[in-house]
Each structure stands twice: as C-alpha cells, then as structure tokens.
C-alpha cells in the first residue's frame, strides 16, 4: 500500500497535470493569434476567387463559429473543448471536409507506426550493441574509426541527411522508388507481393532514420560504457579473473543500458511528431504527411488533434516506463 500512496499517486497526479498543461496550451495558442479565424477562413475563400453573397457569408460565419468551437465565453469554450476531447471527438477536418479528424489519423497512423516502430527498435538495438562494444574496447582501431564516423554524421540536421540520401540513391543511382508508401494504384492486401512492395518503398526512409539513430545511440552508449568501465567493481572483476565476455555483457553493458531504456521510451513517444520530416522528404503517406498538409492548408482541428494525441502518447510512454523501471534496475525498489 505504501507503494500506491508514496509513488503511484504522486506520479499519476504529475501525469495528469502535464497532460492538462499541454492540452491547455493546444487550446490557448490558436486563440492568442490576433484576428478571428472565422473571418480569416472566409477571407481566404474570397482571395481564392470564389464569390460569396451576404446571406451565405452569414450562414458560414455561424457554421464556422460552431466548428471552431468559438461559441460563448472563453471559459465556456474551454469546458466544451475538454468535453469533446474526453469523448475522443476532435471535430472535422477543414481541408478534407466533413471527414472526422480521428478517421484521418486512423488511416495514416499504421504507416507511421510500421515505419517508426521498426526503425526505432533497429537503431536502438544496433546502436547500443556497437556502442557498448566500442566503449569497452575504446582503445582499438575499429572503435576509433566508428567514433569518427559518428562524429561527422551526428550533427547533420536530419532533413539535409535524408535529402542527400534521396538524391543519391533514388535520383542518381535509381535503386529505390523516389516517393510513396506503395506503388501507385496497388490495392493493399495481405500477400507477399504487396508486402515486398511496401518494404521496398519503406527502405529508403527507414535507412535514413536508422543511420542517424544508430549514430546517436552509438555515441551515448559508448560514453556510458566508458564511464562504467572505470568503476571499481569492473576492475575487481578483471582482477578476480572473471571471463571477459561475462564482464562485457553482465557487468558493463548491463549497467550502462539503463539510461538507454529511458531513451527508448522517449523515442517511442516521439513517433507522433518525429515522422514529419521523413515523410515529407520521401512523400510517405503517414501521420507526418497528414500534418504537413494540415499545416499548409491551415487545418486547425487536424493539427490540434495530432498535437493533443501526441502529448497523451508521450506522457503515457514515460509513465509506463517509470512504473516498469524496477524490472530493469533492481536498485530501485518501491517500498
């Protein structure tokens, strides 16, 4: 019971507070903007050249006010906003009118999840494995060479990196398709052909994510292992003649991996917003492309929907991780 009172409840309170602050920000930010979104939308329609007579304009003002959730005082709006969120209603998209935001997210999410879950896991595993070994054998030549490569790749902004990879492997050498998630016009069914096609299209975006991800994980893990390596218990184990493979895996990497598990959870949380640039560069049909189109067309409901969902996803990922942490780190005990 002390666990519930001392750890679980404060942690849950913090969890809900952070979600509350985040979602409130999503509510407040659009309302800080000078100008009325309703009139802005109408002005935009007019500037595109469509003629609107006064009666239609009045109707539109009414409808748009309702759609944007702008009825009543600020406080009423705020309550209504939460009421709709709790029911999972993010309203309808303006750009792809009357499709509900949730449905649009539902269509795009599988693409993004498939791509990012795979690449996150792959780059985490590969990066930590190589990084751990390179950290333990940090005086060896191969370890220094790998470190040098990571030092150059790491600071390059992801956009530039992905862009360069696309130019090289899709335009110059034409090894991979330039864009899309599957061949145009292909019906998505569960058979080998479709799977291979999807894999082929996902390869280049995945490659760009994995290379950068490996570089980052490699560096942090290498540093961590070097720190653990200079601890007394490692020296003692060496002096005591413990087998080297046992020292590497059970003594050094086992200890160094702990902060990396936090990193893994954080990167799972980033999946919602992390795919934006990848999907734009490679025209991949996921959540990022959806968000990009929403940004370009000023589709507020859709942006707010994606932002709100990603706030919940990230905080939940961190909460679950915090509660599971004692499983990996026996030094932490909730008593």
């Amino acid at each position, binding site marked *: 019971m002390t666990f519930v009172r001392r750890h679980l409840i404060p942690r849950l309170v*913090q969890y809900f*507070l*952070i979600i509350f*602050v*985040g979602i409130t*920000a*999503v509510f407040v*930010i*659009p309302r*800080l*903007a000078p100008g009325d979104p309703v009139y802005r939308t109408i002005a935009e329609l007019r500037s595109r050249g469509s003629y609107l007579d006064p009666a239609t304009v009045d109707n539109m003002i009414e409808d748009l006010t309702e759609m944007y959730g702008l009825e009543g005082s600020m406080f009423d709006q705020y309550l209504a906003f939460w009421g709709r969120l709790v029911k999972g209603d993010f309203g309808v998209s303006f750009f792809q009118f009357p499709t509900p935001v949730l449905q649009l997210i539902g269509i795009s999410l599988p693409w993004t999840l498939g791509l990012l879950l795979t690449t996150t896991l792959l780059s985490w595993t590969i990066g930590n494995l190589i990084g751990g070994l390179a950290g333990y054998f940090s005086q060896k030549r191969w370890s220094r060479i790998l470190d040098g490569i990571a*030092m*150059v790749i*790491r*600071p*390059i*902004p992801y*956009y*530039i990196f992905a*862009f*360069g990879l696309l*130019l090289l492997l899709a*335009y110059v050498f034409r090894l991979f398709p330039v864009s899309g998630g599957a061949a145009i016009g292909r019906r998505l069914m569960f058979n080998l052909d479709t799977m291979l096609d999807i894999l082929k299209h996902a390869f280049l975006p995945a490659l760009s994510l994995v290379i950068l991800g490996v570089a980052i994980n490699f560096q942090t893990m290498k540093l961590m292992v070097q720190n653990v390596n*200079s601890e007394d218990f490692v020296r003692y184990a060496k002096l005591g003649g413990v087998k080297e493979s046992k020292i590497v895996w059970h003594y050094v990497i086992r200890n160094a991996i702990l902060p990396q598990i936090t990193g893994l959870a954080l990167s799972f949380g*980033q999946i*919602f*917003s992390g795919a*934006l*640039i990848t999907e*734009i560069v490679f025209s991949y049909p996921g959540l990022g492309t959806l*968000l*990009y189109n929403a*940004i*370009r067309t*000023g589709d507020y409901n859709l*942006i*707010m929907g*994606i*932002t709100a969902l*990603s*706030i919940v996803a*990230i*905080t939940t990922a*961190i909460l679950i991780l915090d509660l599971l942490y004692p499983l990996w780190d026996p030094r932490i005990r909730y008593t």
Partner: protein
Amino acid sequence: MKLLRDLFRDFRFTLSFSILCILVALALLSLFSPYDPTFWSVVPRDLKPSWTYLLGTNSKGQDVFWQATFAVRNSLILSVIAGSVSRVIAIVVGMVAGYLGGGADRVLMFLTDSLLVIPLFLIIVLLAMLIRDRLTLPLLGLLLAFFGWAWDARVIRSLILSLRERGFTQTAILTGSSTLRLVLNEYTPFAMPLIFSTLINNMSWAIGLEMTLAILGLVNIDIPTLGTMLNWALNYQAILLGHWWWVLTPVVLSIFLFVALYWLSVSISEYLDPRTRTQRVGAQ
C-alpha cells in the same frame, strides 16, 4: 591564455574554430554586398558559377554568393538571439531552483519537465503558423528561446545543488555575503564553462529548427537564411533543372556550420570533464 592553449591542443577544436571564423567572416562580407538580398532580377538568371558570379546566380535573378553571405549572417544572428535569451532563462531558473530548493524548486522543475515532455516541435509549428507573416528574425529567435531552455535549466540546477553542499558556500553565508552576491560571485565562475557549452548546443538546435520551419514554409521566406535559401531552391525545382550550385550552397554551408558547432561543444565538454581532460593535457 592557458585555457585557450589547452583547448587548441585538440585538433577538432582548432578545425571547428577555424571553420566558424571563416563562416563569421562570410557573414561580415554581407555588409559589403553590392545587391539588396530582397531584390529580384538584379543579375542574369540561372548562370553557372564563374569569375563574375562566384557561386552562380539563381532563378530569382540573385547572386548566390551574396545571398549566402546574408543567409549565414541571419542564421547566426537568429541562433545568437535564441541561444543567449534562453541561457538567461535557464540560468535564472536553474540557479533559483537549485539554490532555494523546496517549493520553488518543485514548481520550477514541474514547468521544466512539462516543457521537456510536451512535443515542442508541434507547438512551435502551431505558433509559427499563426504569426508567420509578422515573424521577424528577432521574434523567431525569442520564440525559439522561450522553448529551448528547459534541459539546460536542469543541468545548471544540478550543478548548483552540488555547489551548495561545498564548504565555501557555508563560509560565504557565515561571513554575511548576500545570496545574490554569493550566486553571482562564487557560483558563476563554476557555471560559466557549462553555460558556454550548452549555448553552442542550443545555437545549433535553433539553426536546425529554423531550417525545418523554413522548409515547411512557416517563416517569412523573404528574409534570407540557410533554411529559406533551400526553400526557394526547392520551390524552383533547382534539382530537376540541374541548378546544383543553388541547392548545394545552403546544404554544404549548413553541414559545415553544424559539424563545426558540434565539434566545438564536444571538445569543450571533454575539456570540462576532469577524466577526459587528464587524457588530453596530462595531469598537472
């Protein structure tokens, strides 16, 4: 002077420092530009690099070399604004939370953690969308500064927490120096190198974020920066038309800038860590 000599022993520091000096010189050249960067059609369009036009000209009728000087200048100005303002916030929050502890610490750290957890990029996108047309360079810098201090405030706080337990803190308090003087005179020298290394990281973050926003078209694309330069090149299909000098200029410049900033910060933080410092400069 000794500090500088020790730092320059690392070839990465020397190299990245020189690259940064060249880039700053490039930025200063913009003061002597014969053209206004916002004007179109001042030179013939789509010319390859030649002696007259060092890096060629673009489809907007601008000289790519002089555009690049303005782009580097504006990107650097932006990063300095974002970096220095967010440093001030981070230092104040970190020092107050670390020194006072208790309730102030809990409230400030809750704010910090919220900022760390919330998908900032999406929030910045939301904000930038709303004020895109009025988004001047200093304003964008302030916006990035407002979101970029959280992690460094935590780092500074933990430093202050450890300094507070040291003997000289007790001595200072017992001899009656005020809290402000204690923090300013006694703690700042310890925090300075750390603040400097986080400043570099933050500058590089700000430039990268500006590039991303520019490519999404979320900043005022009439102000030349490394990001907007690339945005224009992509909008004019410079890749398909083979205008490589237009696309590659911002790409290559930004890679140099990012790698230089990163190496500088790694080199400085290695110097700060006593374990790696002894490997480098030898025990003294």
